[in-house]
C-alpha cells in the first residue's frame, strides 16, 4: 500500500514537471527524460547493492567492479579475440559468467571468513577487494580508454538515430534496454523475495543466521546465492552502461556510477528492491533537473547576471544531498525501506 503511494507520488511529481514544461524547447521535459534514462543505470547498480545489504547487511563497495570486469570480458571477446568473430549476444553471457564467478570468489575468500566480524570490517574488506580488482584491470588492460560497442547502435549506417525521440531528446536503444531490464528485474526480484521459499530463506538468513541454521537453511548456500546474484546484476549493469559512457577504463563503474547508485539505494531504502529502482530514477531526475535549473535560472550579483551553476559549484551534487537529507529526516528508512 505504502509502496504504491510513494511510487504514485513520484510519478505524479514528474508528470507535473512534464506538464508545466510542455511546449518549451528550453524547458525541463528533456531533462526529465535524461534523468529517467540515467537514473535507470543508477537503479540497476543499486539493485545489487540492496540485494547484498538485504541478504547480509554489508555495504558492498565492490559492486561496481563486477560491472567493470564483465564489460572488460565482453570487450576482450569482441575486440581482442580476432580469430573468431564473437557477436555481442554471445559475449554478453560470458561477461555475466565471469562477473558471477568473481562474486562467488569474493564471497568465499573475503565475505565468508569475515561473516562474524563487525560490519565495518566487511565494508573495508569490500573496498579493498574493489581496489585490488581495479589494480588487476590496470595490469591486464592498461589505463587506456577502450570502446565497447552497444547492443544496438545509436545510429544506423547512414547516421540517422535508431533511438526514440521524446521531448526533443533522443533516447538511444541501449538506454531503453536498461530501463526495461531494470523494471523487469525490480518486479522479478520483488516477487522472489516476497513469494518464494529461497527468497524468504535469504531474508531469514540476514536477520538471524543462527536461527536460520537451526531450522535447516544452509547459510553458506544462501550467502553464495546472494553474492552470485548481486554480481550478476552488477555485471549486467556494466555491460549495458559502458557503451553509453563512450569509454571503458579500469574502475569505470566504481568511479562513475557507484556513488550515485549508493545514494539511490539509501534514498529508496536499503532493504527495498523497488526502492532501489525508485531511488535511481529520483536521483537521476534530481541531478538532471538541477543541471537544467542551474543553467536556466539566474541571480544578479553586483549588477552581473549569473546562472545558478556559476554561483553554486556542483549544483547537481548539492541538490542530491539536499533531497537525500530531506527524505532521511522525514523517513530515516528511505522512501520504501523497512526492516527486512
Amino acid at each position: 500500500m505504502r509502496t504504491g503511494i510513494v511510487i504514485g507520488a513520484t510519478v505524479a511529481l514528474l508528470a507535473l514537471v512534464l506538464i508545466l514544461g510542455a511546449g518549451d524547447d528550453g524547458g525541463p521535459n528533456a531533462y526529465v527524460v535524461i534523468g529517467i534514462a540515467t537514473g535507470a543505470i543508477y537503479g540497476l547498480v543499486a539493485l545489487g547493492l540492496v540485494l547484498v545489504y538485504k541478504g547480509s547487511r554489508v555495504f558492498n563497495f565492490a559492486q561496481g567492479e563486477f560491472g567493470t570486469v564483465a564489460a572488460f570480458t565482453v570487450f576482450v571477446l569482441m575486440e581482442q579475440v580476432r580469430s573468431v568473430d564473437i557477436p555481442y549476444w554471445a559475449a554478453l553471457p560470458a561477461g555475466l559468467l565471469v562477473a558471477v564467478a568473481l562474486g562467488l570468489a569474493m564471497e568465499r575468500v573475503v565475505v565468508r571468513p569475515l561473516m562474524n566480524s563487525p560490519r565495518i570490517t566487511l565494508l573495508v574488506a569490500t573496498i579493498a577487494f574493489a581496489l585490488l580488482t581495479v589494480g588487476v584491470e590496470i595490469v591486464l588492460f592498461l589505463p587506456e580508454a577502450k570502446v565497447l560497442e552497444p547492443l544496438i547502435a545509436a545510429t544506423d549506417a547512414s547516421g540517422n538515430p535508431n533511438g526514440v525521440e521524446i521531448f526533443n531528446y533522443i533516447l538511444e536503444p541501449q538506454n531503453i534496454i536498461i530501463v526495461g531490464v531494470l523494471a523487469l528485474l525490480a518486479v522479478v526480484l520483488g516477487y522472489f523475495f516476497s513469494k518464494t521459499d529461497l527468497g524468504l530463506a535469504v531474508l531469514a538468513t540476514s536477520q538471524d543466521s543462527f536461527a536460520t541454521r537451526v531450522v535447516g537453511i544452509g547459510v553458506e548456500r544462501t550467502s553464495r546465492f546472494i553474492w552470485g546474484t548481486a554480481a550478476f546484476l552488477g555485471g549486467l549493469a556494466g555491460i549495458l552502461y559502458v557503451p553509453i559512457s563512450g569509454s571503458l577504463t579500469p574502475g569505470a563503474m566504481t568511479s562513475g556510477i557507484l556513488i550515485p547508485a549508493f545514494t539511490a539505494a539509501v534514498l529508496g531504502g536499503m532493504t527495498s528492491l523497488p526502492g532501489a529502482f525508485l531511488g535511481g530514477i529520483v536521483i537521476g531526475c534530481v541531478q538532471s533537473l538541477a543541471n537544467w535549473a542551474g543553467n536556466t535560472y539566474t541571480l544578479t550579483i553586483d549588477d552581473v547576471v549569473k546562472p545558478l551553476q556559476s554561483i553554486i559549484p556542483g549544483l547537481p551534487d548539492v541538490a542530491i544531498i539536499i533531497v537525500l537529507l530531506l527524505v532521511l529526516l522525514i523517513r530515516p528508512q528511505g522512501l520504501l525501506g523497512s526492516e527486512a
Partner: protein
Amino acid sequence: MTRSRRPLAVVLVGVFLLVAAACGQKPGVALPEGTKIVDGQVVDAETGEVLGTVEEVLGTGTTDLAGDLGTDTTGTGTTTGTSTGTGTSTGTGSDPGEPAPPANEPPPSSGGNTTGVTDKVIKIGIHAPLTGAAPVPSDSVEIGKDLYFRWMADQGQTLFGRNVEVVLKNDQYNPSTAVAVCKEMVEKDKVFMLSGAAGTDQIQACARYAASVGVPYVGAGVTELVLNQLPNYFATTATYNDQGPMLADFLVSDLGAKNEKNGMLTFDTPNFEDARQGFLDGMKKQGAAVVYDRRVSKGAGTSEARSVVQEMKTAGIENVFVLTSPVWWINVLKQADTQQYEPQWVGVGISMTFDTVASVACRGGSSIDGSKFFSPFPAWFDSNRFDPEFRQAMNKFHSNENGGDDFMWLSWSGSKTFWDMFKGVGQNLTREAFIYEVERMRALKNGIGPALSFAPDDHFGADTVHVSEARCSDNRWHTIESFISDF
C-alpha cells in the same frame, strides 16, 4: 594576470646591445656566417667541417664570445649572464639559441647543490598520471622517458661526460599523490630536478613542493596561478593564459566564429580560471560573443554530459571551447553523437590531442571529426616532418613498436629540451646554476616544441602552439599549423 613580454624583450635586447658595445666588440670577432662552435672547434653549420679552434678562426681574446653563445661552446672562465664552466658539449640539430641578455645580478658563485649529479649521470624525476582520471599509458611513458637520452648515448653524445637518468613515478592524477611521489624522488631517489607533462593540478602541486625545497621544476605550461610566483618553475609550453586569447583569434580568423554562437565548457577548478578568462577576454577583443559559458564539476559523469549536450543543442551553439578531462569529453562526444549534435570543438592543452582520444571518440561516432585543438607538440603522425631521428631511434631500440606513439613523441620532445638546458648550463651543474642559467636562455629551439625564451622575471618560456585536427578517416590527430601565435 597579464604579462607583457614584448617590452621586456625590447629592453633585454637593448641592454644586450649596450653591453656588447661597451665591451668594445671589434670587427672580425663575430663568428663567420654559416658556422657554429662545437667542442671548441668552429665548424661549418651545414657540412660539419672543422674550420679550426675558436682562437684560430677568431683570433685571441675570444673566449668571452664562446661563453656568450651559451651552448655548443668551449671556453674557460665565467662570462657574465651566460654559461659558465669548462668542458665540451655536443648537439644534434637543436638550435642552441640566441645569446642571453646580461643579467642584473652576478651568476651563482662556485659551490651549490649538486644532488643527483655525478661525473657520469644527471638524475631527473618525472611524475605522470599512469592511473586515475586521465591516465597516460605506462608502457609508452616507460619507453619514451629516456628514449632520447639512449639515442644520444648511442650517437656518442654526452653532456660534459654525463648522460641523463630518469626516475618515473605515478601521481595518479591526484595533487596530494603528486606531492608524495615528488617528495620521494627528491628525498629518496635524490634527483637533480623534477618535471611533469600532464595534469594541471598535479604540476602545480609538485612545482610548489619543489620550490619549497629549492629543486628546479621544468614542466608543461598550464595555469599561471601560483606558478608565476615560483622561482624554480619553468614552463616549456604556452600556458592556458597565453592560449586563451590565441584560441579566440584562431576561432574568429580561421573558423569564422565572429558572427556565430560560441560556447565554453570547462571543469570547475580554479586552475582553469585563467584559461577561461583569457578566452573570454580574447573573444571580446575579437568582437565575438560567448553565449554559453558552462562549468561542470570535475566529478561529472554521464548525467552532466547529457545535460550539457542538450543545453548546447537547444541553444544552437556552433563552436565549443572545451577544457575538461579527455575521458569526460569522450562522454560528451558520445552524447553529442546520440543527439546528432556536431559543433566545431576547439581547445587548448596537451592531453586532448593524444591519438587515443581520437581513436576512442571516432569509434563511438563522428562528432570529434574536424575538432581543432592547440597542442605544444606536433601530432605523432607528422613526427618525421619535425624530427626524423625520433622514428630512427624507435626503429633502433623498439623496432616492434611500429614507430611508437604520441606519448613517446612527447617524451622525446621534453627530453630534447632538458638536454639543451643542461648543455646550456655547462659542466658545473648545480641547482642554483641551472635556475640562474635557464632563466637567461633565449630562443631555445628543439624543432618540435615551441621556441623557449626565459627571463629572470618570466619563467613562461613559450608563446607558440601547433594546431592539431582530429580525423576519423584514420582515427588520429594531424598537424595543420605549426609554431604559430598569430592567426
